[in-house]
């Protein structure tokens, strides 16, 4: 059974009685113990989709359609209290901003153990012991001393390691990692990503790894889901997607990723134009104003997602997309 299956998810912004759709018809799924990378420029709806899964989209936003099945349960059928029961213990989340995601006035130890005490019913002492083990696992030295420290006393990378430990604390089945390395120094981004991927694998935890860097996820994920302007434009196994990107946007993203096989500074082709304003109504495919292959059809009709080999792709001209890679 698939661990997480999101189908046709729609998220609306509701303001003074007006509705504005921010996420349209998004579908993706994660198998047990596997990693799904969700890739897209900022503003494409990645965070919102993840927050909808864990039931934490902010006030003023609303899940307006679609279904979320987790571990065989329909999450939309759960009430607020049942959803809360699931958070932390079944689904955990790591956020982008390690500097502000930890409570500045509570010790690392308190923030790490409170979930375990509540969800696993551990005693203070058992929780402390488990916390020491978790900190060791996420590569923090001298864990006993760290438990007594406060967030401002440790570096950003270290804080993100603590966030990873918090996410793992109650043995969840799924972790949503929302750009966990974007705010970090480039020199440690790889380490942290490596750590998350390795620990999820070791613990058999499913992982949704959100990033705006398609290059970075190649090594860590089984499947990739590409989002653009609030829509999923292409989903495919990672190995397949890298070789045969079908959607022009995916190809644009790939072309803008530096590759080891390329000489430095060559072949980097950024996509022209800027991502759409989510408030702007764009008829047809939201990518068409930036798309080199756009036809009249693209500005008239929203492309329907369809199967193309191992891919799901939402583009009228996907067949025309000959893989450029050789």
């Amino acid at each position: 059974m698939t661990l997480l299956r999101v189908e046709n998810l729609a998220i609306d912004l509701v303001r003074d009685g007006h509705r504005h759709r921010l996420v349209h018809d998004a579908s993706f799924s994660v198998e047990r113990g596997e990693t799904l990378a969700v890739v897209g420029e900022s503003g494409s709806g990645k965070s919102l989709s993840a927050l909808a899964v864990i039931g934490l989209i902010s006030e003023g936003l609303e899940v307006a359609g679609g279904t979320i099945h987790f571990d065989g349960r329909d999450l939309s059928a759960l009430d607020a209290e049942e959803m809360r029961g699931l958070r932390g213990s079944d689904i955990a989340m790591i956020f982008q901003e390690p500097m502000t995601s930890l409570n500045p006035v509570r010790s690392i130890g308190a923030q790490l153990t409170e979930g375990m005490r509540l969800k696993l019913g551990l005693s203070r002492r058992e929780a402390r012991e488990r916390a020491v083990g978790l900190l060791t696992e996420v590569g923090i030295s001298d864990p006993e001393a760290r438990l007594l420290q406060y967030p401002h006393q440790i570096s950003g990378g270290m804080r993100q390691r603590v966030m990873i430990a918090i996410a793992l604390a109650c043995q969840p089945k799924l972790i949503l990692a929302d750009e966990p390395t974007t705010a970090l120094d480039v020199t440690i981004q790889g380490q942290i990503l490596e750590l998350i991927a390795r620990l999820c694998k070791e613990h058999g935890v499913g992982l949704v790894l959100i990033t705006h860097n398609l290059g970075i996820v190649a090594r860590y994920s089984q499947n990739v889901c590409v989002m653009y302007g609030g829509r999923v434009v292409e989903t495919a196994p990672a190995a397949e997607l890298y070789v045969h990107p079908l959607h022009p946007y995916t190809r644009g993203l790939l072309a803008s990723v530096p590759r080891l096989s390329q000489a430095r500074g060559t072949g980097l082709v950024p996509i022209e134009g800027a991502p759409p304003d989510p408030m702007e109504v764009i008829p047809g495919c939201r990518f068409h104003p930036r798309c080199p292959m756009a036809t009249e059809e693209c500005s008239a009709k929203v492309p329907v997602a369809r199967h193309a080999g191992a891919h799901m792709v939402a583009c009228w001209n996907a067949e025309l997309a000959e893989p450029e890679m050789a």
Partner: protein
Amino acid sequence: MSVFLIRRLFGAIVVMWAVATLVFFMLRIVPGDPIAAMLADAGGPDEIAAMRAKLGLDQSMLVQYFKWFALMLEGDLGTSLYGSHQPVTQIILEALPRTLSLALIAFVIAVAIAVPAGIISATRRNTATDTAVSFAAFLGLSMPDFWLAILLIIVFAANLQWLPAIGYVPLSEGFWPWLKHLILPAIAVGTAFSAIIARMIRSALLEVLKADYMRTAAAKGLTGRKMMLGHALPNAMIPVITVIGIAFALLISGAVVVENVFAIKGLGRVLIEGILNRDYPVVQGAVLIVSAFFVLSNLLVDLLYGVIDPRIRYS
């Protein structure tokens, strides 16, 4: 910690000195003469001069100041110009526990009401409950404390006869007798204070609830109660504590007024009688003590910061 403390204590002493000096000269510059007040129309010019010399008021202001200051350093605040010439320290020591008891009870009642009220209105923002709390806070802020005092006496003392209307019983004569005499005056003093704190907690909480770490807490699946008490409130209290320190001034000045309505012979009574009579030593002493409390409460606030916010640890 100690360096910080010493620096702050030194600052506190300078402030108290400045206040004491200011009051000393202001009392002598503003119109009004203790001798005239004392002798009324009875004394002739000779008697007035004799009395003036006896009390040392014939010397220049600066000489008087240095004499007073030298004695103060020894802990001698002088004696009252009136009656049995009671030492000022004794007058203050008698009055102080009454005012402190009143301020303390007012503080406890005010905070006990303000914290839940602030939490409720923040978590139920823009609901009827929030509006009701806001309205109550507005009412509490706009009611003059002496008027509220009279209202409380009429309702709870005169009509319902639940609590005594006037007087003070020391704690040594029992907790309940002490407390029951202080409840009405404490409510009169603490209401505005409570309203300010409740508003502050509400706005601080609204800010904190938007913070990233609150989302982290929610992602752990904590209960609303744990999120509020364990994560939101400790952060929200940081700005509130500053206001509590400032509002403490309100509480003491409120106590000074309200004491008179409830016939509690605290510092307020001492101060007002002293001013009316131009009893210089008494006024100077009382003001010195009141300013000491201001300065101390500010110091306490600074120390509390260090306790609540680990980012501020004095070294």
